[in-house]
């Protein structure tokens, strides 16, 4: 019982509190690469607190859909967090096929963000929404394929099982396939979270943005919800990537939790490094990259099924 309580508190606390820190680490790494000092690690928390205290300005074109977009987006991402195994422990909500719900909840968040963007009647935001749904529809099969490789390798159909104790055996039995799936998963992570080389979160030209341009008209608490939701989504993907490389069950639960936290920080550093050393791809190249990620996972699947 205390174990369950500890798991619940750790998972909920981590999913709710850790995400903004991830952004801080990424930005600090980028600053170091650029030779700057950079904002403090907890800058994102301060930004969120400030936005929550502010009022909001709304476009005259918008309806309730614009106001509902950030709310549904954040609620859906937080709900997906219920199915996320953290620290090598099973998630609060784990059942066969839960990763389908996980992916579709993220889809729900994206659908409402795109609708809110279209509600403004702005061509920039329409363009961003079009790009977001285009790339997402290619990223989703790639995500499914990578997770199916995991499912086949570990013999479990739930995220908690895929990233659970069975993984250690799977790495020794099918390392090449898992490595391919890991690469595919990392590419999907960068694409889904609007990071370089797909999208630049710091860009300042509306014509070239994807995710950021969709939320141009949001302000105040609405914008806080969106930023927080985006950080949470990055954390969810990061936790899956880290769970895939972490060897669990060797030490006690708290040791593996500590390793997990270190791993997530390392993931944020990796994202920061990628952003610092790579340029953005041309928009027409992005689908090719995502199809490439799918192909890697299909190779992995063939390795496991033939």
């Amino acid at each position: 019982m205390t174990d369950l309580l500890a798991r619940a508190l750790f998972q909920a606390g981590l999913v709710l509190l850790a995400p903004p820190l991830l952004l801080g680490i990424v930005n600090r790494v980028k600053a170091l690469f650029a030779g700057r000092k950079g904002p403090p690690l907890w800058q994102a928390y301060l930004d969120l607190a400030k936005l929550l205290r502010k009022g909001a300005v709304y476009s005259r074109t918008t309806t309730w859909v614009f106001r509902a977009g950030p709310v549904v987006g954040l609620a859906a991402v937080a709900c997906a967090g219920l199915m996320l195994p953290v620290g090598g422990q099973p998630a609060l909500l784990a059942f066969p096929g839960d990763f389908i719900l996980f992916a579709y909840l993220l889809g729900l968040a994206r659908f409402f963000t795109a609708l809110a963007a279209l509600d403004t009647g702005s061509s920039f935001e329409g363009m961003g929404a079009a790009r977001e749904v285009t790339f997402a529809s290619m990223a989703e099969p790639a995500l499914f394929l990578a997770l199916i490789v995991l499912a086949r390798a570990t013999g479990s159909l739930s995220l908690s099982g895929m990233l659970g104790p069975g993984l250690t055996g799977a790495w020794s039995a099918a390392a090449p396939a898992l490595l391919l799936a890991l690469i595919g998963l990392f590419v999907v992570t960068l694409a889904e979270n609007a990071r370089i080389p797909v999208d630049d979160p710091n860009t300042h030209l509306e014509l070239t943005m994807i995710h950021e341009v969709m939320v141009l008209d949001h302000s105040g608490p609405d914008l806080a919800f969106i930023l927080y939701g985006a950080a949470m989504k990055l954390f969810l993907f990061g936790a899956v990537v880290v769970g895939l490389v972490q060897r669990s069950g060797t030490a006690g639960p708290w040791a593996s939790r500590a390793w997990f936290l270190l791993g997530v920080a390392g993931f944020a550093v990796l994202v920061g490094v990628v952003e610092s050393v790579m340029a953005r791809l041309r928009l027409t190249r992005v689908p090719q990259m995502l199809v490439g990620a799918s192909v890697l996972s299909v190779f992995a699947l063939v390795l496991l099924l033939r």
Partner: protein
Amino acid sequence: MALTLAAVAVGLVSASGVPGMVLPGRPRLGQLLSCAALCAGAALGIGAAVSALAGGTALNVHHPWPVPLGSLALRLDGLSAIFLLPILAVPALGSVYGLGYWPQHVLGGRAARLQLLYGLVTGSMALVTLADNALLFLFAWEVMAVSSFLLVLTEQEKPGVSRAAFAFLAATHVGTFALFALFSWAGNARHSFDFAQWQGLPAAGATGVWCLALLLAGFGLKSGLAPLHFWLPGAHAAAPSHVSALMSGVLLKTGIYGLLRFTGLFDAPPVGWGMTVLVLGAVSAVLGVVLALAQHDLKRLLAYHSVENIGIIAMGVGLALLGRARAEPALVLLGFSGAALHVVNHSLFKSLLFLGAGSVQHATGTRDLEHLGGLGARMPFTSLLFLVGAAAISGLPPLNGFASEWLVALGALHSMDRPRGDVVGFAVLAAPALALVGGLAAACFAKVQGTVFLGNPRSEHAAGAHESPTAMLLPMAALALACAAIGLAPSLLLPPLARAAAAWAGLPPSALAGPAAEAGRSATLVSGAALALLLAAAALWLFRRRRLPGPMPTAETWGCGYASPTARMQYTASSFAASLVRGFGWAVRSRVRLSPPRGLFPAQASFATEVADPVLDGVLLPAAGAGERWLVRLRAAYPGRIQFHAVLILLTLVATLVWSLLL
């Protein structure tokens, strides 16, 4: 008892259009009586279906019928009951919608005729699901085809309608022809035309291949499975919207019913059957949604989404067939219940969307996406209800589309439970295909909802739109509620679905009890997550309300500093979908008509695109044109005298005689 109720329902529903016909002087009363009769009949039939689903045993009656080889044999089992529910519910709601959308006191005799055919097609669809004799089945099938053909022709004075109706009639009769062949083979093999005698037909070997081909031709044409979907978009777009709702929502499902019913009669279908149906389903799903993305006529777009959803259903059927071939109960259960639940779900959200499209057309007079926009502020209820349908068809939780797509995807994942090297393991690729289809459908419905209901109106028609009357809103609200209810509690539906799946696969109900219990547990947790989602959204909404009390300041949309944007600056539906459509250029050919601006002071310029159907415009029409040219040449050599006919007949007779003597 339940079967008698169902038979009474069929009669009442079929005759429900009569009051409108016999009371031409009192059109309002006539239409109201017709609608009431249809709803009453539907209620009776739904009661019968629910009790059959709850009871779990099949009910039969068998009466002699003076038609040669025929008998009045009816059967109500789980499979029929599942299909009977939407087949009766959707037309009942559609006829209520018709009170506002197609009023008899305005349109006169034409509306009365439509009502008569509406009841007739509903009754014949119900009879198709109940018939237990090949001749009775074909009779109902034919009544259904002809009355729906006449329904498509309702507005025959409009351009393109009679062509679409003719394509539908031709396609449906080619399908019926395939069924004739299949039924005569089975009837001769078993010396009876009662389906009860056909149980356990052999599916192995070359006979099996032929049977599968005939099944797919007959029922694939009816259900619009790609590449046999070519008649569908035209016919569904040409009909009035509540007829489109009936056709896209439930009429297509009779093809799926046929596929399930007759694959259920065959013994142990080989792996090839399941794989073929699965691959066709995946092709249909991807092709349907890609073609839908490229459309800018709202109703054609929705019609192509039916091709997509029929594909998803076929994927479920294919998985269930694979489960039977490999004796994997989990695969049978998940594939069958995913397909059956998606049949019900698709009929709910697709008819909701078609009724919404009808309301849009009613309010603005156009269904071209490029002329719409901003209707959310003018038609708030229609907009909300359409949004529910759009989210449901995109398979987003917590609505019903997710529940059934989740079951099918889970079935695909269970196909991995096979040892290495088994080809069935590769059926797992259906899951990423579903993810691709789901992502593309969400993209397409973001485009539809965004360009129709959000932003600024793109034309005066859209700017002057008005909310629909209550008679049109109520049926849509009922459908939206049903979508939400099934999405929130899918686990309640699994036990009856499992019983029907066991009966279909010829297994004892206990064989599927284990997988059904496991799927039920997972489905309960899905409901839990859906509930958590709703609670979280409500809490965040309240928090936001606390943070932002009172009216907030408003301004123009951000346009990089440009302060007077117009509606023409918005992103259009075509540009929204352009990069996806270009990515699928191998499937979608756009015809572009462009007259570019020329000279220093360009006066006129225009740009229009039109998406050709790859099967109808790419293959069938060119082939038909070539055939026609060849026949014209043949006619030149034909003297056109009756004696020549007689000689031809004689020669044919002699040729067949020689053929039969030689064999």
